[in-house]
């Protein structure tokens, strides 16, 4: 068995206001690999954590454009090239008749891109995460708020970071290994 390595330090907070202020202080103090874990969305927390904009939108646009191109190619190939069928006097590749399917393919690929892109960006699905080892982390789906600082943070120092999290009001400050 490999020796467990430090994943980071996790601290518990008791209210949305507390986690918001803690996130602000942690990022202001220079930590960059900080994350917050809450039972429900807390407004403005992403800004307090200084997280950049998500690249998901660009991914969805690319998927949507791909859907448009594929749908057009498909209909052009099938209806006007490979097996030409004349329907109600329209030319085999008449643009108005292609719009609904193009629209649907765009929506389909955008939707798939949004869901699975979100999974990929969050590195999901995964069955286990080191943070689960924290003693009170199970309350994250109920009524407690957690702030984590990862060991890969350049400013991370086991003792210094733990002291800092306690100084900003964190409870159950624990080093998590995994």
């Amino acid at each position, binding site marked *: 068995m490999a020796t467990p390595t430090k994943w980071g330090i996790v601290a518990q907070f008791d209210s949305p206001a507390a986690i918001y202020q803690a996130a602000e202080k942690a990022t202001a103090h220079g930590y960059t690999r900080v994350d917050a874990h809450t039972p429900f969305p807390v*407004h403005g927390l992403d800004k307090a954590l200084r997280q950049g904009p998500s690249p998901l*939108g660009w991914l969805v646009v690319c998927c949507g454009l791909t859907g448009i191109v594929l749908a057009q190619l498909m209909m052009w190939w099938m209806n006007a090239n490979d097996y030409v069928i004349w329907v109600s006097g329209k030319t085999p590749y008449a*643009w108005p008749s292609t719009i609904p399917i193009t629209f649907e393919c765009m929506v389909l690929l955008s939707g798939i891109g949004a869901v699975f892109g979100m999974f990929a960006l969050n590195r999901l699905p995964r069955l286990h995460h080191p943070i689960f080892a924290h003693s009170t982390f199970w309350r994250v789906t109920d009524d407690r708020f957690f702030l984590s600082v990862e060991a890969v943070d350049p400013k991370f120092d086991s003792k210094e970071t733990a002291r800092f999290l306690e100084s900003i009001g964190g409870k159950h400050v624990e080093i998590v290994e995994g």
Partner: protein
Amino acid sequence: MTSAHSVAHNTAPSLQQLAPNVVARVRDGDLNLAQMVLLGLGVVLIGAAWATGGEHFYASYLVGYMGVLGICLGALFFTMLQHIVRAGWSVSVRRLAENMTATLPLMLLLFVPILVGFESIYSHWSHAQIDPDLPNFDAVVAGKSGWLNKTFFFVRVAIYFTIWIGLGTYFRRMSIKQDETGDPAISLRLSRLAAPGILLFALSITFAAFDWIMSIDPHWFSTIFGVTYFAGSFMAFLAFTILLAKWLGAKGYLREAITVEHYHDLGKLLFTFVVFWTYTNFSQYMLIWYANLPEETRWFADRAEGGWGAIGTILVFGHFFIPFAFLLSRHIKRNTITLCIGSAFLLLIHCFDMQFLILPSVASHEGAHGTAAHGAEHGEVAVAIENGLARFPHDLGTYLHGISWGDFGCFVGLLGLVAGFTLLNVRRSNLLPLRDPRLGESLHFQNI
């Protein structure tokens, strides 16, 4: 809950408690000049269009009227929509919409020129021969004469305006009453009333669009027509509201109450209704194109002639592709300058949309004695729409040659009148629903 105010009396907190820096009311005499300039501009432009337009004035006026009426009706829909979904974010914007609905009595007054020009605008059915024994008998209009007759037409004008003015006045009055009492029961009552209100609204705007625009060409019919009119109207309302809020902000009002977060949401709705307009219009076009029935395609054939093909192309790009690409990014929607540029552009496009719906049908000789046989000739013209891009410069030249300045002037003039009258209402009431239970939520609203 240390203070007893909200618990003891079960009323909403006041604006002073929520946001002491927000000004609740326009200062006495402020914005008076702007209001007068807008009202004066409206009167002058409409008067000039009337003086120079001749018989065509009535068609120009209808273009402006339907375009601007859509904004007022969009405001009524917005007000009821926010109540029915019990929206929190929009409370600080809602009073602007309520003040726009208070221009509906003015719109009733402004309907008079349409009544005066009735014989000119709706001659295709009001002058149609519905006696089967006489020559030029128009069987289609005769079949519709139970609905399309002058008396019932005027009765329906009264019915529509009763619904609109009734709903608009009630929602606004109760909201203003809540400013004083802070009674949360008013919000509950309005959200309950909004459900039948929206139903009545949907029916009345649909039939108003049928009556006042679609019936210009009485042989043509489209069941989705009312929805397309609503879609464009609500988009124009959002564009107008964004511009009004931005202007009031520049004058020092509502700046802390209508924040970038609210503009972002209004921008999202604007984007949505750009797409929804396209969706309904394409649905209408595709079915008619696909079935290729002469009685239906003739409407588009009229719009392939007289240079209107160029306006069709402008609408495809200006009402969809360009605003779609422009408004897609959140950075555009969160920057009030770019959002206002988009809004002003879409208001202009809305005027083109109204021209496209109204003017070719007024000019069409087909409507007067149209038969399926006439339509068949023009069915072939519809195919020519497909070559629209190549013909664009030529068509645009024809359009510019045929269009009258009043076709824009009446729209701008009526917009000026409605903006001026809205401003009058804004100055007479509080700028936002001061004691709405969700005002706090709205003032602190943030997009995730």
